[in-house]
């Protein structure tokens, strides 16, 4: 396979999962680059070498698209896609991620359990407040139930907001970081 065909094929393969029209546009850009280079009397192997590693380019292009789709529609799914892409290009320190990841998961679990317990207790108080015979009587039990439920709701809302803000912060950080990552050097080295 010629250097040009190999570059374009590898690039296309590396972009798998990206919308087809975006892939076509990207491949057309690089294909035009080869055509321009050829018109300037350069050979395909030189041009490909100067362009750099097509897989690294694909990773970066895909990462940008993922961050964009997360920013357009923040959700767990798009956030996970950003994270997965981040791992692929090594923009986050893996050690950091191994520590922070489980910690974050534990924290989320703890918050989720707290919310569930609050809500369940609140509902239980409301549902069988009279028969519980708690100190203060039925009125206080019902009020406590309502209080617990609203606490659960506000906690959930707060956590959702915090998670959203954290996602956006992370996207900004990753973008900053990967722009400074080894992209292409003339030797094509990628650390």
């Amino acid at each position: 396979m010629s250097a040009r065909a190999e570059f374009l094929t590898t690039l296309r393969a590396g972009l798998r999962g990206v919308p087809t029209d975006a892939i076509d546009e990207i491949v057309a850009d690089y294909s035009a680059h080869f055509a321009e280079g050829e018109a300037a009397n350069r050979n395909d192997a030189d041009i490909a070498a100067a362009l750099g590693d097509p897989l690294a380019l694909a990773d970066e292009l895909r990462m940008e698209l993922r961050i964009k789709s997360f920013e357009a529609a923040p959700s767990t799914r798009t956030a996970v896609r950003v994270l997965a892409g981040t791992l692929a290009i090594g923009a986050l320190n893996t050690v950091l991620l191994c520590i922070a990841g489980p910690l974050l998961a534990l924290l989320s679990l703890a918050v989720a359990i707290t919310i569930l317990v609050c809500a369940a207790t609140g509902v239980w108080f409301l549902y069988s407040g009279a028969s519980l015979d708690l100190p203060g009587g039925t009125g206080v039990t019902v009020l406590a139930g309502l209080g617990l439920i609203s606490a659960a709701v506000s906690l959930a809302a707060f956590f959702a907001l915090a998670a959203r803000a954290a996602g956006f912060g992370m996207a900004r950080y990753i973008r900053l970081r990967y722009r400074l990552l080894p992209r292409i050097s003339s030797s094509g080295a990628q650390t």
Partner: protein
Amino acid sequence: MTEPIDIQLKKGVLELCVLELLSQEDGYAYEIASRLADAIGMGEGTVYPLMRRLHVEGLVETYFVESSAGPSRKYYRITRSGRAELTRERNAWHAFTRAVNGIVGGRK
């Protein structure tokens, strides 16, 4: 994941350089890539993800021009918000280099 400091520096100012070139005249990616490759020693492929991002962010717009060399060329033109961004980045660059020069100083 360490890399020579000059590569990091170059990457940091790549966007500024591209916007600066486009503010002088419209250009196509191959031309921009080779100018930057010659001037600051960047890999030529680096410019394409950057052009895409600038386009998505509305800092540049594209149009096609028939070329004698073959297929029509995609030209990039800087937009109004691109110029605003260029001014911001240029100011940041001058402030930064002034501050660093004040510390690093000239060679005696």
